[in-house]
């Protein structure tokens, strides 16, 4: 059977392309529910904020809470720890950004930008490398060289303001939105 070739698109060409386009859109539309069902459900998204009572936490103590399924660090810093965090210049930090959800995204990672009250350090307990929970230093058992936290999975070291100082982690520990509802109580989230 001979085929006629013309420069002009025919009605058949149009129908062919249109049918294909409808099929492609239909396939994409049908695929989306199967992809999106993997995302967090409404019940997960509705996870409430938490309140933390600070009174039992002693000076120098770091306590881990659970917030949205992840560990949350609350540390009552000693004057020495605050001093250690302030002694370092921002230009020497691997990640110079505060990573504080309470501040603008480009705030520098000074110690003042990492806490609302300098005595109380609050951040996510998720190592920014691959999500392990770092171990907190205590005066008796230091973890890493910077007095803060050491992640045993891959050796990332954080200082007393939760800033990455050494190891593979790319960012400082993330600080979630929180506020003091009373001098001894914070609301996170």
């Amino acid at each position: 059977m001979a085929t006629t070739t013309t420069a002009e698109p025919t009605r058949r060409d149009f129908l062919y392309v249109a049918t294909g386009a409808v099929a492609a859109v239909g396939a994409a539309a049908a695929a989306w529910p199967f992809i999106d069902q993997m995302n967090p459900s409404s019940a997960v998204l509705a996870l409430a904020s938490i309140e933390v009572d600070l009174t039992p936490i002693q000076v120098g103590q770091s306590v881990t809470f659970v917030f949205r399924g992840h560990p949350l660090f609350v540390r009552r810093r000693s004057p020495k720890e605050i001093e250690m965090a302030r002694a370092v210049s921002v230009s020497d930090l691997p990640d110079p950004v505060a990573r504080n959800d309470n501040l603008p995204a480009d705030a520098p990672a000074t110690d003042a930008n990492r806490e609302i009250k300098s005595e109380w350090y609050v951040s996510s307990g998720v190592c920014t490398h691959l999500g392990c929970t770092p171990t907190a230093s205590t005066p008796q058992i230091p973890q890493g060289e910077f007095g803060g936290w050491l992640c045993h999975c891959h050796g990332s070291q954080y200082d007393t303001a939760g800033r990455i100082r050494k190891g593979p982690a790319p960012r400082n520990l993330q600080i979630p939105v929180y506020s003091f509802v009373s001098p001894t109580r914070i609301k996170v989230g």
Partner: protein
Amino acid sequence: MSGPSTYVPQTGLTRWLDTRLPLVRFAHDTMLSFPTPRNLNFWYAFGAILTFCLGVQIVTGIVLAMHYTPSALVGSIPDSNLAFDSVESIMRDVNYGWLLRYVHANGASMFFLAVYIHMFRGLYYGSYKAPREVLWILGVIIYVLMVLTAFMGYSLVWGNMSFWAVTVITNLFSSLDQVIPHLGSAIATWLWGGFAVGDATLNRFFSLHYLMPFVIAGVVGLHIWALHVPGNNNPLGIDVKGPQDTVPFHPYYTVKDGFYVALFAILFAALVFYAPDLVGDPNNFIPANPVVTPADIVPEWYLRPFYAMLRSIPQQLAGVLVLAGALLTLVFIPWLDSSRVRSNRFRPVMKVFFWVFVADCILLGYCGSEGVDAAWHLGGIELSLVWVARIATAYYYIYFWVLMPLIGLIERPLPLPDSIAKSVLGASAAPAE
């Protein structure tokens, strides 16, 4: 090499079936009369051994799924979970549950032991070289599917090492945030079905862990198909020149493979009955705890070489790329090897580097097993294992991307035998073996 079919239906029923669906002919041609080089050695038994492993995993897995609960919700005791409880129930209450689970858990290790030997064998004898490139790539795909399946299966125990293994590995995707902000985190959240690894993650991993072995079985079918078009490579790496070089698959290799499968099963049984927790991690006797990471987090032994590569790179995204690149490299091997000779038996230079490569992979595995701060003390000099892993990772890449193309060009191979038959039977045509 498949050649014309030699099957002749013997009964009325098989003659009737043969003209409608030649299923018996297919089985006869692929499993009985298939012409196979007469010089295949022990290392060629691992195809059959791997088929055996896949069968064991599927059968034990289907049975275990009848007793397992894929739920991270709180279990019968505080800080426990239903998944962990159901695994304990399999171990203690279900009739022969301990045996089925130990066979399945150790079966994964035996499966990887066999697949690594199979892969090194293919590398040594040049089984990836033309015309077997597709066969090799299908093998790489099977290996990657095996890694995914094993990873998801390991998560199902929902012990503390399982939980943190899932957390760390799924977080590898978050490194993509460094390319496009929030892309990696969005993928991680999508994989988890939440803001952290949890109940939704466990359920989907269970579903996929059940599915994947059947996908593997499908690709194995393609792998065998791709094997049967050019036919087996052999330890000499030379082509089959005629019927004198081959023997029918049955009874010669059904018996030989069967013998080695039996030996492998003895080793398997020794592991299951005498050291069932040898390769397991003690942290998996503790239920998953989302706020306490085990002090030393390590994957199962068969993934440690890749884990060592990941850990040795200080930059997150670079580490992930090195890890992914190590797997992707395997796909290109057929085109990286410039040698005209397949078998390392006739490649005096490459053979040395091959064995160094084997040692290198074992060294990487060792580095991946040790803590992050581990070091060697060699006569007063402290050599950090991170640096050992870096050098070993470099050799892994150099072996494939530099040595393989280069040595093929400069090496003078040993003279190849005229034919498989002459090599096996000798000049005097003495009886084989």
